[in-house]
């Protein structure tokens, strides 16, 4: 399968456009100016306005009260402390697991390497509950392994379960980043150390690890933010262990206290943005990896059994766990109640594929398919503006675009609920009708598409920027010099050249849209059913079989679309004469 075309879930910011004193001194043409204005307006509506509304809500009297509470009342302080503990644990465990997989992949030779790579990427394409629900089935109070096999009365709910589930769900991010870094390390540095008399273990400690420290730090931060922003898993497997995101969810859906919800999410937003900014700063000055020239020589593989055996044992144990989880999902979908009543049944699929289930499946796929090209196009245009057109303020525009990813999903969802549940009226003029919620136009579907777009766009933007920086600016200038306007150049030169990046960005955008829950859950409506929120309600109701069936179908749709997009990329790669 073509999973390896997927970029990691949260790409660290690519190095910002290189400083070229020569470029961008020309005047912008009118079309480009209009495009800039249009893009900024769209971003303002999609992300700027909801964030502003969160801030205004959080700083109302009730919101301020809650904010004060978070730091003063002991119950709320526990929530805050819980959140931090969870983030730190997931950051450490996820980075460690990711590094083990990456190191095995890059520096070890063993059978099943390719398979291990695919297993490590599996959690990216699956909805978050797949892992949580399967872990409950396997290790819960009446879990297949803990109870039936080992006879233990073990409680997985709470911090242990959350750490396990979140680490397994998010470690692929660390894996991809660290694998990329390991592969770009110049093997000559190892050889230099070796020729200076260092042994393997010494090289690992004094050369490899220090060069990867920025990578470890950035993975830790990414996982920290992903972990504290996650909503689905705390709801499913959190038990009594309340974190900020689930507290915000309860405030809004249970207590109808929007201001408090906004206040909680503001506390989530701050570390999210902070980590994002640190990442960008880091990317600008990360110069550890191959400072000079092209990497040369061959990687010397680790052959000593002293290193190989424990590492491979650990990696394969985790891989087995991941497989067990997905087998559970798959088998569970065909079983009445896995672990209790293990009879084969198609009832789960029948339930999911008829009525509400097929409705949700259809709606989700359609909305994701609508959002994906919009997100892709917007991301590419933004990348083009940032790399090629804008000189002053391009950092700000890039940042505005990336906000969709930097802002935790829970915060985004609450922002949308606050901002778009009522029509936007300034003075006496209605600028926008209500976009989200039951009473909104299109049954609230528009707001969901908007969330999909703003959430997926940054990955298109990132891959667009990365590939645009590979293209010689003189190619654009050649087109201009032959009489093409700025937009014409973008359309007939730039776009075809970045199409592969565009498509892989789109693929990822689609997968992300289909599996996202935290921003969606606040704005789904009875008319617009979304698969992920349907799965959550099945899990809540204890109907795990249905949830498993949903998950397998969701995974199948995502993999199917990814496969299709890959076919398209391959077909179009040859240059064609278009006369």
């Amino acid at each position, binding site marked *: 399968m073509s999973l390896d075309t997927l970029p990691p879930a949260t790409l660290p910011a690519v190095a910002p456009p290189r400083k070229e004193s020569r470029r961008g001194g020309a005047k912008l043409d009118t079309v480009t100016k209009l495009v800039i204005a249009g893009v900024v307006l769209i971003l303002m509506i999609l992300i700027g306005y909801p964030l502003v509304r969160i801030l205004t809500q959080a700083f109302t009297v009730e919101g301020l009260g809650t904010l004060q509470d978070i730091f003063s009342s002991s119950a709320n302080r526990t929530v805050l402390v819980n959140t931090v503990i969870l983030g730190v644990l997931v950051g450490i465990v996820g980075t460690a697991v990711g590094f083990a997989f990456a190191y095995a992949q890059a520096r070890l030779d063993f059978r099943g390497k390719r398979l291990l790579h695919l297993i490590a990427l599996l959690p990216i394409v699956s909805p978050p509950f797949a892992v949580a629900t399967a872990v409950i089935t396997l290790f819960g109070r009446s879990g297949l392994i803990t109870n039936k096999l080992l006879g233990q009365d073990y409680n997985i709910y709470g911090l242990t379960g959350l750490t396990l589930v979140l680490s397994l769900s998010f470690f692929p991010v660390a894996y991809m980043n660290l694998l990329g870094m390991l592969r770009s390390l110049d093997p000559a540095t190892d050889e230099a150390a070796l020729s200076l008399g260092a042994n393997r273990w010494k090289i690992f400690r004094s050369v490899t690890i220090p060069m990867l420290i920025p990578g470890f730090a950035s993975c830790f931060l990414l996982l920290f933010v992903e972990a504290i922003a996650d909503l689905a898993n705390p709801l499913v497997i959190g038990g009594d262990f309340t974190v900020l995101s689930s507290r915000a969810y309860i405030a809004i859906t249970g207590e109808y206290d929007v201001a408090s919800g906004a206040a909680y999410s503001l506390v989530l937003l701050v570390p999210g943005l902070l980590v994002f900014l640190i990442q960008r700063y880091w990317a600008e000055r990360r110069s550890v990896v191959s400072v000079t020239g092209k990497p040369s020589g061959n990687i010397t593989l680790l052959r000593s059994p002293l290193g190989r055996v424990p590492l491979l044992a650990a990696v394969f144990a985790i891989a087995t766990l991941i497989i067990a989880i997905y087998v559970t999902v798959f088998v569970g979908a065909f079983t009445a109640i896995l672990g209790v009543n293990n009879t084969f049944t198609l009832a789960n699929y029948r339930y999911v594929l008829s009525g509400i289930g097929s409705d949700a499946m259809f709606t989700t796929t359609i909305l994701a398919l609508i959002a994906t090209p919009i997100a892709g196009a917007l991301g590419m245009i933004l990348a083009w503006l940032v790399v090629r057109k804008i000189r002053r303020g391009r950092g700000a525009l890039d940042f505005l675009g990336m906000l969709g990813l930097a802002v935790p999903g829970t915060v985004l969802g609450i922002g949308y609920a606050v901002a778009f549940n009522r029509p936007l009226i300034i003075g006496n003029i209605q600028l926008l009708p209500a976009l989200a919620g039951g009473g909104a136009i299109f049954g609230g579907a528009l707001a969901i598409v908007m969330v999909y777009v703003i959430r997926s766009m940054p990955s298109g933007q990132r891959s667009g920027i990365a590939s645009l920086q590979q293209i*010689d600016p003189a190619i654009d200038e050649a087109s201009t*010099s032959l009489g093409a306007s700025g937009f014409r150049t973008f359309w007939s030169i730039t776009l075809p050249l970045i199409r592969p990046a565009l498509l892989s960005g789109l693929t990822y955008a689609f997968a992300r849209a289909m599996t996202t829950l935290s921003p969606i859950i606040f704005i789904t409506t009875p008319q617009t059913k979304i698969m992920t929120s349907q799965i959550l309600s099945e899990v809540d109701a204890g109907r795990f079989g249905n949830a498993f069936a949903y998950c397998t179908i969701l995974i199948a749709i995502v993999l199917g679309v990814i496969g299709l997009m890959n076919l398209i990329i391959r077909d179009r790669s040859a240059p064609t004469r278009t006369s």
Partner: protein
Amino acid sequence: MATSLSTTRETPRTASPAGSLQLTDLVKQYPGSAGTEPAVAGITLDIRPGEFLTLLGPSGCGKTTTLRMIAGFETPSHGTLTLDGEDMIALTPDKRPMAMVFQSYALFPHMSVFDNVAYGLRLQRFPRKRVQEEVDFALASMSLTKLADRAPNQLSGGQQQRVALARAMVMKPKVLLFDEPLSNLDAKLRVQMRTEIRALQHKLGITSVYVTHDQDEAMSLSDRIVVMRQGRIEQVATPDTVYRKPASVFVADFIGRANFLDTTIDTLVTDGGGNRATVRALGATYVVPAHDALVTGSPVCLMVRPESVALSPAPESREVTGSYGRVLKSVFYGAWVEYEIETVDGNVTAVIHDPAPGDILASGTFVQVSFEQDRAWLLPADD
């Protein structure tokens, strides 16, 4: 003025006679670099129709920035730029009737050779048949016909540069702009392409502005050379004048190689052919052509090209005195020998072409050093 602007869109950018380009006091100060020297500090040039003009100078002298201002990729901070009397600065690069050939060729990698060359014509909405004819002709004249369906990455560097050239020429622009187009080619190919560019430009008669840091390219291609230094023009002249009568020590040093001898003017006479000065150098008196700006008493510097230095045997001398010098170093290059000679006026480099077998002087040999006085040049000393 209003009419000329409004017709810009309708008048095809192609099929125009050669243009005459005026640059008046062009300045480029990059934003954020206020207080430092501008990249281009006031360039005034009058480029005649059909002329091949080369901007030559070391890197960072502002030659590329000047070219990019002409093309419209940079907006001047100050000054005017007109083509046949029409203001160019108001036009975006795509509206200017110019075409540029890039250092990196900048071919569109996703298009065939044919589509690359046809790109500009199609933008002009030329009828299909006309596009076919024009492109076929351009490809034929660059001997590219057989490669029409290839992708750029299937071509060699030289072929890519031909496509880039065909793509620019097919537009029949009023001005052709070249940004170091040959610097990515190997030495032999560079010489060949140089000849082809010159022949083609002569045939088409398109006004051309060519940027390079390679003096051989500048000498062999240009009608006139503009030597630039730190954003300013040092000299504008024909290759012959730039080489023989450089305006400054910088120009003399940058174009070709030169010996600079300290001297003073004994007498200065002005005749029909310019200044002539009597000077003492290398233990003898010479009457040499001199720069117009010189007066008796000016600090001066005598330029003698290594190939103008003559060496003759000095059997009677055993020391460096008067016109006698001693060979310090002797390097054989095949077609010529190069000597470094210690003289009373400092070390002098001499190049002797086509040395006879067994005629090469060893280090330590004493020689008498002189030079052809008509080929020397007296110019203001650098301060």
